[in-house]
């Protein structure tokens, strides 16, 4: 009886304790959530601390986000058309998407990189690579628009790109998918020895940012995956990971995962410069496109270049060495002081930290373990400094916090691992949701990381947000790295598939942002800078409408005289000079996007009407209280008709100008 009572009492006590613990745990969880919420809370009307630039992967764009809030600020069209503003649709920007294969409206953006001075992001430009049709784009950080795109000749799958040297001397490019170089028609099973890769260096003009293909190094047909360039002592070098040193051409999943070690290609770009100076290169003639946007003319231009300097390593000894690296490395990362080089071997649980000094010593002492197609392979033990043991499953990429710690993303085990650069000692780990690819710390791949936050960019989202059918957005998680323990702060979906990102303090570029284009400086050949100057000009079957837009009307807004068979060019200039007053322009039935025209800007919509009728056009941007009235009509007559050629608008009427 007593025993029974005791049991009941004990049971009650246990329930009480459990309830107490549960309430306590819930309170603690709520407290933690509140702490995290406070750290990412940016009150309405206030600004984020960092600009973050996330690539868009298969969406071909760059997403500009604010951190720590995770707010999406802008989508910049880069290698993909952007119907929002007409980028890649209108004749002003279509040349940006020209390649040696013609006009390509899409690509796959991977690795954004900010320009650097003394190894630190300087806020001038952002670069990003296109993986599918090899290209690199330059985005100006004043207008936050794509200003230049250069195609990389003699390459395929431009993945180890666009990583920058310490003073923005060069950007890297490389061949993830080795191919016959130069291209030719050969059976695919003759891959071995016939397929090649190139490691390219794209020069950047320090004043204008203009890019050029400086030189390309012809390398064996492995898959060159990622890169990073040295800093401080390792300034003259860039490092590229490779996998598929097996040179498999089918079922790579198995056939390219046989070797215990693949290679990091260490490239001495100063040596390459010497060889170029000494004429130790071949001039090849593979065509490649070079496109740039003239911000005064509001127009892009495209040229095809046909000359590149190709360095063959056997003709330029000392330009490239291979460092054996545990199994199929993905990222290659350099410590902020430039002393350590890390290969993130994605199929190995142990990472090798190499010493730059030891590498130089091994090269001097010729500690080679053979060669691959004539390129010396350095002796692994001579270059190795220490291991990071049992780091995780699937280490992919590592960044630094500037306090001596490294943070590695682990795809298979879905976590971020914090460890000490100098010893490889693991100090913390935190789960991420799920299957992280790259991670990013503001300035985390530079000589002076700003630290504070870590952004995990995850490949699998699954149950993290409200489900949206089979296709889900990727996710990013913001982690606080200020303390000993990493803390998850925020989780937000991203546009496209960000493969990598860059961030810098907002204060560096916030006040340099352009608000308008100066109308007086508009040198677009079809600009109309005042309503007085509007006109319609017929040149044979071309009709040029010089149109203006201002709140809340277009001039002209009635156009008659267009015939089937004509090509109509609506050159619309936004006369506004006030911040954030764009006007849009769209024509019923025109098989293209709208144009979103910023104040002071001119953009053209090209339309070949196919059927007679009267077609409305209108402003697509809710610009003012009378935005709904911002509309007009264009009349299209049959090809053999003889309609009057007139226009109306702004309370005036005019006749077309007919030129021969």
């Amino acid at each position, binding site marked *: 009886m007593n025993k029974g009572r005791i049991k009941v009492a004990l049971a009650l006590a246990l329930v009480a304790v459990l309830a107490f613990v549960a309430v306590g745990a819930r309170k603690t969880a709520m407290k933690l959530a509140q702490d995290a919420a406070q750290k990412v809370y940016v009150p309405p009307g206030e600004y984020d601390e960092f600009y973050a630039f996330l690539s868009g992967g298969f969406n071909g764009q760059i997403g500009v986000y604010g951190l720590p809030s995770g707010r999406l600020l802008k989508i910049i069209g880069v290698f993909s058309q952007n119907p929002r503003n007409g980028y890649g649709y209108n004749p002003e920007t279509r040349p940006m998407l020209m390649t040696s294969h013609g006009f390509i409206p899409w690509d796959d953006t991977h690795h954004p990189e900010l320009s650097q001075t003394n190894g630190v992001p300087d806020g001038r430009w952002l670069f990003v690579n296109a993986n599918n049709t090899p290209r690199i784009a330059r985005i100006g950080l004043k207008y936050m628009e794509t200003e230049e795109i250069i195609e990389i000749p003699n390459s395929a799958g431009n993945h180890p790109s666009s990583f920058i040297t310490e003073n923005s001397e060069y950007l890297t490019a490389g061949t993830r998918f080795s191919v016959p170089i130069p291209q030719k028609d050969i059976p695919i099973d003759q891959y071995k020895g016939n397929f090649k890769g190139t490691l390219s260096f794209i020069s950047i003009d320090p004043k204008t940012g203009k890019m050029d293909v400086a030189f390309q190094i012809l390398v064996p047909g492995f898959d060159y995956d990622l890169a990073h360039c040295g800093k401080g002592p390792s300034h003259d070098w860039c490092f590229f990971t490779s996998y598929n040193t097996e040179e498999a051409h089918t079922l790579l999943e198995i056939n390219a995962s046989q070797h215990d070690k693949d290679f990091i290609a260490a490239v001495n770009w100063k040596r390459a410069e010497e060889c170029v100076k000494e004429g130790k290169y071949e001039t090849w003639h593979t065509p490649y496109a070079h496109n740039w946007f003239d911000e005064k003319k509001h127009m892009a231009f495209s040229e095809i270049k046909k000359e590149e300097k190709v360095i063959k390593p056997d003709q330029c000894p000392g330009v490239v060495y291979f460092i054996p690296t545990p199994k199929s490395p993905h990222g290659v990362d350099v410590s902020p002081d430039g002393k350590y080089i890390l290969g993130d071997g994605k199929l190995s649980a142990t990472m090798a930290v190499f010493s730059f000094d030891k590498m130089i010593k091994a090269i001097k002492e010729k500690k080679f373990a053979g060669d691959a197609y004539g390129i010396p392979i350095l002796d692994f033990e001579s270059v190795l400094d220490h291991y990071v043991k049992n780091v995780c499953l699937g280490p992919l990429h590592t960044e630094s916090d500037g306090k001596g710690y490294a943070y590695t993303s682990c795809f298979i085990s879905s976590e971020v691992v914090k460890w000490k650069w100098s010893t490889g000692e693991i100090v913390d780990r935190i789960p991420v949701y799920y299957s992280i690819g790259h991670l990013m710390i503001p300035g985390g791949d530079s000589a002076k990381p700003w630290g504070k936050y870590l952004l995990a960019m995850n490949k699998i989202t699954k149950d993290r947000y409200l489900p949206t059918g089979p296709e889900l957005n990727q996710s990013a998680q913001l982690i606080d790295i200020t303390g000993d323990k990493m803390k998850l702060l925020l989780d937000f979906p991203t546009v496209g598939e960000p493969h990598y990102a860059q961030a810098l303090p907002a204060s560096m570029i916030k006040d340099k942002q352009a608000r308008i284009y100066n109308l007086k400086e508009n040198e677009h050949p079809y600009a109309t800078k005042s309503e007085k100057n509007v006109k319609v000009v017929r040149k044979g079957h071309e009709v040029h409408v010089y149109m203006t837009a*201002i*709140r*809340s009307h277009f001039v002209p807004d009635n156009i008659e005289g267009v015939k089937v068979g004509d090509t109509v060019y609506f050159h619309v200039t936004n006369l*506004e*000079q*006030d911040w954030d007053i764009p006007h849009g322009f769209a024509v019923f039935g025109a098989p293209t996007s709208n144009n979103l025209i910023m104040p002071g800007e001119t953009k053209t919509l090209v339309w070949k009407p196919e059927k007679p009728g009267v077609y409305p056009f209108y402003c697509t941007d809710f610009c*003012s*209280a*009378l935005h709904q*009235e911002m509309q007009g009509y264009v009349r299209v007559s049959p090809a053999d008709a003889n309609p009057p050629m007139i226009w109306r608008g702004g309370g005036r009427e005019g006749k077309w100008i007919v030129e021969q």
Partner: protein
Amino acid sequence: MAKAEKIPILARVLVAVSAVIGIAAYFFPLWGYHLQAPQYPEGLDMWIWLYKLTGKVDIINDLNHYVGFMKLTESMFWEFKVLPVLTGILILWGLWVALVGTRRAFYWWLGYYAVFAVFSLADFYYRLWQFGHTVDPHAPIRITGYVPPMFGTKHFMNFTISSLPAAGFWVLLAGFVVAVLALLAAWPRAQAARAAARG
């Protein structure tokens, strides 16, 4: 009062000071408008000078077209051509008065200053009234009888409009005050009293 009667040195010095102060009116705006609206938390400023308009005039014009206000341009104001000349006359004449120092010249100059001040302010108010009453009858939004404030703050649609004299006005006012001080110094009774005291 003899024709060539002179005003005391103190009054002449004050007249000279008053005239010299007036030069500053060319370097500062006379009047300032500050417009604030939900979409313009940073505000829109417009400055009226002796001879020009500065600030966000174009933006204000763009906004004004909704209610059919006239477009403000420098060329529509003859005042911008005349006011600098009138001010120049005031300054040169003042310096001349200080030099010759006759009471008659002094009074004429003072009278000119007073008329100039009253005329300018009255013209300014007329211009404001005219601005508010010359609206395009076909404007999208119809308004009647709105006059922008001359001193202080008024609300108009989504805008709060504040108008206050600016540095140039204060400079001219200071010049006028100094001129009045000169008048006190030259006041016949005061002068006579001082003369009597000196015996």
